[in-house]
Each structure stands twice: as C-alpha cells, then as structure tokens.
C-alpha cells in the first residue's frame, strides 16, 4: 500500500528536515515576483488603496458582503478538505453535489408549498429546518453511494485514478441536475400520479431544463441595523453566517472530540495503522463521505436560499472557489478551510469593487500563488505534511 503512493505521501513527511527559508528555488520565484510587482503592479495597488481611503463606508460594506459569502464557501470547502484529508482525493463531484443540494431544497420547498407571501413565519421556520435535514440526508446518502461505487473499487489504484472517476461523477451529477430541473418530466410524473404537490415542482422548474431556477425568498429580509443609509446587513445575511459558522463549529467539534472523529483523524493519518488499531477503515471513510455529503447538501440549501437561484452549472464555479479555499487554508485542515473560505469571499468582494468583476477569478488565483509561495502548504497546513 505505502509503496504505491507518490513521493508526496505523508508517510515520508516526518523524515523531511525543515528546509531553510531561502532555498534556491524560492529565491528564483521571489526574484521573478519582485520584478512583476515592481513594474506592473505598484500603480494598481496605489489606485486601490486611495479608493479605499476615499470611501470607508463602502469598504466596510464590501467586507461584510465578502465575509458572508466566505462563510458558505467555507462550508463547501469543508467537504473537499474532509475527503482530501482521508483519501488524498480531489473530489471533483463535491461541487456538483452542492448543486444537487440546491435543487433538492427547491423541490422540497415546492412540495411543501412554501411561499413567502402566504405561509406564516413559523411554518416556514420549521419546514426549512425539516427540509435542511431531508436535503442533508439525501446528499449524504448520495455521496456515500458515490464513494461506494465509484471510489472504493479504486482504493488501491494509482492516486490519480479516483480523480478521473470523480470527474466522471461530476458530469453524471450535472446531468442529474438537468433532469431535476426539467419541468416537463415533473409534469408527466404529476399527471401520472395526479398530485398537486408535484405539479408545483413542475411549475417551479419551468419549461427549460437548463435555465436557472428561482428559489422563493423565504429568509427574512429586514435590516439588522436601524440607522438609515448605513451598513446594509439583513437578517438573511446574519442567518447564513450563523448557520454556516454553526456547521463549521459542529464539524470541528465532531472531528475533534467524538470517537468517530478520532477514527476519522486516525484513518486520515495512516490508514493501515488505523486498521491495526481496530478501526474499520472502510466504514470510517463511508462516514466521512456521509458527513461531507451532508455538508454539501446543507451548503446547497443555504446558498440556494441566500442567492435565490439553482442552476445546473452552479456546482462547477462554487467547487472551484471552494477547492481553492481549501488549498489556501491548507488542505486537510478544517480551520484552514474556514479561514481560506473567508479570505476568498473577502478577496472576491474587494476585487469586484476595486478591480473589476471580470478580473476577480484572476485576482484570486494570483493571491493564491502569492500566498503559496511563502507558505507552500497553505496558511494553516503543516510544513512538509498535507493532513490535519
């Protein structure tokens, strides 16, 4: 088992002596960076800093927007980080599972007939909690199923084989998203069963399967701060942040303090040794995928309700950002993912304001390169090793 792993395997990690900071290659890259920054980038920084100075209110507003976005990016990033920690697999399908989560929540919301205009606040509140549970359950089972059929047979395969399997599953899930979004199919089912509830789903999906779907605005929209013309911060933002942070804290304490969490950490550190200690590695991995899937589904519901949209391509973008967040924070590290998520949300918002939306992705990756240059294993990643 150990022999088939690539050289970056963590087993070898403790043997690596700490490198001096200024190695030859780091010197190379830093010199290149200084040239780049000096000639091209200083005027840009100058301009941005001056703009920030000019309007601190706007800056605060953007920071708040960015941090709120960051919390849900962090939740998606956790799914990547968990799976990576235990299998060293970049689970490309996770972003699409998140998308399925958004679709499922729209389906359940329509099934329950929730409507911000007619339903009472208490019904909405309790139904949403129920729906969150249902969505998490569905995506958790789905993720565990994917692991069982697409990744487990590849446990002993070369490290990159499951990656391709994951990419394949990502395509499959995207197509599933198109199916779920096809109002005509729902119409047929509704006609067949004579069910009004399913008819409502068909209405919510519309006639174009690939078009973005609108998720009703069920979260409270009032302002938290009562001073007019000040910071815009709604209860919706607050709720998203609180639920996301709650999930983060819950997961952290689960992995940190429970017996199963310990098993997960042990399996992540050394699967064979964990097995020798009497841990059922396959079961532990299944549990990890269950948790990852539940988190993905929860994130899908949170983002779906927050942004009000479900579309079958949403998983790709969110996945890319979240995976970047996970790497930025040090992949395999839960707190790192949270930090990375917040940072990416922040960068996105600030870049939208001061640089331009179309550059935002470029800015994120540029900053990522910059940070990894100085901390090659991410912000909170362990030097030399790659796991939590």
């Amino acid at each position, binding site marked *: 088992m150990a*022999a088939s792993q690539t050289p970056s395997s963590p087993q070898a990690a403790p043997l690596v002596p700490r490198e001096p900071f200024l190695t030859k290659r780091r010197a190379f890259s830093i010199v290149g960076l200084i040239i780049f920054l000096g000639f091209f980038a200083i005027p840009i920084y*100058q301009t941005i800093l001056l703009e920030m100075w000019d309007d601190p209110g706007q800056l605060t507003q953007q920071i708040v927007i960015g941090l709120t976005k960051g919390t849900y990016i962090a939740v998606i990033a956790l799914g990547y980080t968990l799976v990576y920690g235990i299998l060293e697999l970049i689970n490309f399908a996770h972003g699409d599972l998140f998308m399925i989560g958004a679709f499922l929540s729209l389906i359940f919301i329509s099934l329950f007939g929730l409507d911000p205009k007619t339903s009472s606040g208490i019904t909405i509140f309790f139904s949403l909690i129920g729906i969150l549970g249902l969505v998490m359950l569905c995506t958790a089972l789905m993720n565990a199923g994917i692991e069982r059929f697409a990744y487990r047979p590849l446990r002993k395969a*070369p490290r*990159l084989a499951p990656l391709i399997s994951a990419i*394949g599953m990502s395509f499959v899930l995207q197509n599933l998203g198109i199916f779920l979004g096809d109002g005509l199919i729902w119409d047929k089912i509704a006609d067949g069963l004579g069910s009004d509830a399913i008819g409502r789903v068909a209405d919510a999906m519309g006639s174009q399967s690939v078009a973005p779907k609108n998720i009703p605005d069920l979260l409270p929209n009032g302002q938290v701060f009562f001073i007019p013309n000040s910071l815009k911060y709604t209860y919706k933002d607050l709720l998203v942040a609180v639920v996301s942070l709650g999930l983060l804290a819950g997961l952290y304490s689960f992995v940190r303090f429970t017996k199963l969490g310990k098993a997960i950490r042990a399996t992540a550190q050394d699967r064979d040794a964990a097995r020798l200690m009497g841990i059922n590695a396959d079961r532990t991995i299944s549990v990890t995928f269950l948790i990852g899937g539940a988190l993905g589904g929860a994130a899908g519901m949170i983002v779906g309700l927050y942004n009000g949209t479900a579309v079958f391509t949403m998983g790709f973008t969110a996945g890319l950002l979240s995976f970047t967040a996970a*790497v930025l924070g040090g992949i395999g590290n839960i707190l790192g993912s949270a930090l990375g998520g917040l940072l990416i949300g922040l960068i996105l918002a600030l870049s939208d304001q001061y640089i331009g939306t179309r550059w935002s992705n470029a800015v994120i990756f540029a900053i990522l390169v910059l940070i990894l240059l100085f901390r090659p294993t991410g912000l909170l990643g362990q030097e030399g090793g790659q796991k939590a």
Partner: protein
Amino acid sequence: MPNTQRYVKTGGIGFAVGAFFLWNYPNLGIGAALLGGLVIAALCLLYSAPLPDMIKAGLIAGMFGAVMTIVYGTDKPGVAIIAGMLSGLGAGLLVFQRSPQANPKKAAILGAEAGAIAGAWTALALLLTAFVIAPAAGVDAGEFAEHLSETVIFADALGLGSDILILLFAFAFSTLSAAILGAAACAARSLPLRPNIPLLAVIALPVLLIPLIDRAGNLLLLDALIPIYIFILLALGLNIVVGYAGLLDLGYAAFFAIGAYTTAMLSSPHLGINLSFWLVIWVAAAVAAIAGLTLGAPTLPLRGDYLAIVTLGFGEIVPILFRSLGGGPPSGTLTLRFFGMPIGIEQVDLTGGNKGINPISPPHLPFIGDFEPSNKIPWYYLLIVIMGLAIFFINRLRDSRQGRAWMAMREDELAADAMGINVVRTKLLAFSMGAMFSGFGGAFYGAFIGAIFPSSFDFSVSIILLCMVILGGLGNMTGVIIGGLLIQGADKMFIPKGAELFRDIANERASATGSSTVGVSALQDLTQQRLLLFGIVLVVMMLVRPEGLLPNERRKAELHPDDDTINSNSVAAEAESDPSLAA
C-alpha cells in the same frame, strides 16, 4: 467460487442495462429488448470469462469496431471497413500482449485469428445495422442501399450491383483486412527488433490509409479525427509533465492557448503581421516553452496538489488575460495613479478580445498551394508528420539523461536531489518541454480552424487532457494515444453520433404512431444525456482499468495478483514490448 459471483454480477448488470435501453425504444419491441439484453449480458460474460486469449482479444478489439460501425453505419455503412481494419490491428496487438509468441509464424496465425474475430464482429455489427437498426431509425431499404453503394469502397469498381452482394463484400473485406492486419501486427511484434520498424509500418498503414478510404467513400471521418489527433498531441505534451515528471498540472490548456494565440497574432491580418505557418509554428512552440518556464518558476517550492491548484490558477488566468487584452471599452484607457500621478495606459487590441482572431492564414506548400479548409487530407498528413516527430522526440527525451532525471524526481524528489539531480532545472525543463508540444498543437489548431476564441481554452480542456493521460496509463505514450482515442472518440464521435441515432429511432417511433416528433420524452432523447453518458464512460473506464490502459508493470502486478493466467505472461510481455512499441 469467486468467479460465479463475477459472472452473475456482470451478466446481470449487462442484461439490465441492455433491456432497459431497448425497452426505452418501443419500436424495437419487447422481444428485441429481451434479445438485446441477452446479447449484452452475453458480451459482459464473454468479457469476464477466461476464454482463449485470441478470442478475448478479438472480442474486445472488435467491440470498438462494432460500436463505431453501429453509430455511423446507418448513414455511412462504409465506415465498417475502417472500423474493421482498426479493430483487427488492435486485436493483433492485444493478443500479443496477452500471450506473447517468440515465433513470428505462430504469432501471425494467432494474430490472424484474433483479427478475423474482431473483423467479423465488426462486420456483424454492419449486418445488425442493415437489418435492424437502420429500419428502426427510419432509413428504408432503398435508402440504405444507396448509402451502401456510395460509401463502401471498391463496390462500384467491382461492379457489385445487388445490395446483398455489397454487404457481403463489406463483410468479407472488413474481416479479411482485419485478419491481415492482425497477423501482421502480431508477427511484427514478435520480431526481436529495436526499434521495431516493421511494427511501426504495420501501425502506420491504416493510419495513412484512412484519409484515402475516407475520400473514396465520402465518410467525413477526418473532420472528427483531426481534432482528436490534436488533443492527443496535447496529451503527449501533458504526459511529459504529469506522467514523466510527476507534476500534476491542471492548467495545461494555458499553453495550448498561448501557442494558438501566438500563431493567430503572427499569421493573420489582425496585427498586420502575416508570416508563413512553417515559421510561426516554431515561434509558437518557442513562446509556449518560454511561458512554461515563466509559469513554472513560481511553482517550484510547491508539491502535489498545491502545485495542481496553482497550475489550475494559471489555466484560469491566461484565458482571462486573452479575453481582456482586446482593447476597446470598458478597458480602453486605464487610468492609474502612481504616487499620485495619473498614468493613462492606452490599451491596444492585441487579442481581439471575445471576437477572437480570424482569419488565420493556412499553411502553404508548393504543388498543394494553400491548405483548403474543405480538403482535410493535407491537414491530416501534416498533423501525422507533426505527431510522428513529437512522438520520436518525446521518446528520445524520455530515454535521455533528462528523461531519467524526470522519472527519478517523480519517484522521490528528495532522493533525486540527493543523487545530484538539479531539481530546479529538471522541473522547469519538464514544464517548458511539455508546454512546447502544446505550442505545436496550438499552432496547428489555430491554422486548422482558421479562427480562435478565448472560450476554446477553458478548464474543461485541461481536465479532458488529464483524463486522457491518466486513463492511458501515466507515463506510457502508447497508452496515452489509445486513451486519447477512446476519450476523445467518445466525446466527439461515438456519444454524439450514438445519441443522434437513438433520437432518430425515438422519432421514427413517434412518427409511426402519428404523434408529434416534438415531444419525444427526455429519457428517450439521448442527445439530452450526453453529459451523463460521458461521465459514465469516464467512471466505467477507470473502474475497468484503474491502473490505466497500459500501465507500468509494477503497478499492474500490485493490482491484479489474482489474475494468474493473464498476469504471468503479460508482465514479461510488457517489460519487453512497451519500449519497442513506443519506439
């Protein structure tokens, strides 16, 4: 008996899939569904059964030919001949892989048998098309006969009037050519030569013949084949980075873009520079190689997946750059402040932004003149030459001191460093060499399409290339080529064509029952399920061959300790055959 369980599993899954599929197309009927399910179940069983090597090799290779024949056969039955040749060649190589022979004569007999089975298998698919699928898809007998006489080569020359005769001729031709190619391939492989020139010649024969058959039968396969070959060329370059040097690169499309854009800028009216393609292709490769160095430099301290994400970042940034360097609003004049002083940067239209750059001048040769977009044959041969050179050079590179340094670094970077390998230089060279070949690919692509757009170089391109490399078997050039053919063939040929075929069948059913063709159910219209099909293809391919199609032998031994009959000789075979095949 673990085997019984295996048979039940594969047979059951096969039957379920086949029956569901056919049941979904009611004009084929319940009988057809049962029969189809049984056939597919039988195929699955055959695949998992310990049959003699030659039958198994023939069946596996023939499967490829059969699928190709079925999806194309309704419109272009002549494809069966090309499919037969290719599957015969594949069968010959495969059977040698499974049971190597030292005696060329014996090898030839074995190869001929495997090839004949593969060819006959393909030809059977043609008959199936003629009598079952074509009528179901709404092509009546007369129309099919017309297609037959149009696309089956030599049919006119031999004066074959009747449709049955042409079918029989195609059947015989396909089987015979497959047997001959199989025999030749198997025999050539048994020759203890290095480099194995006869083997190369055998492989080159159908590759070089395809355009001629295509032209004679008006099959139009080249339009799909050339892009596939371009992607294979790119995958070969990526193989240097990922396969040899072990650096996971998720942004390889960036170099492809750089090569293509260099070509576009230097040989189009866009910037007023119109250099000859023969010069530009070298410039493009050089620029791409330099870009590989530059983008490689900042990644030097990174390892594993941290490297992957940074390369992914470059892959995202480069198309954004090309998109944004197009001048015009909103980026006309960019005003920045440098310590309070305003600086206006007038943006030049370098890349055409979203409009892309067109037209890009095609290559020009004496006698042939400008390469025409409508005549694909010169393009095809030019690409074959480029690929041949690329394969030759990459092969030499792999066996050189540098190549061994890459592999040492891949296995253990620290140990390689300790043994005196200059890791910085080795890594940078891997990046720039890999990028260089994508520069060639990009230059050819630009000239071939005649227009480029920033959207052609998305993340999806990098991912598909990576799939090709990994499926083929990391670091094995032959594997990468076959993996590329399969994945790109699935994406660009089999799945779209097959989906169209099944949609036609569903439509025919709808019009036969008098209902509208507009409301064909989403489940029946396979064209709506291409993402699903492609995803399943990727997953199944990985599950069937987790180690890649042609892995290195050490990994295979680790993975299949129980495949005793196949394993013992195939390990020995691969050890000697792999380098000779790729030579």
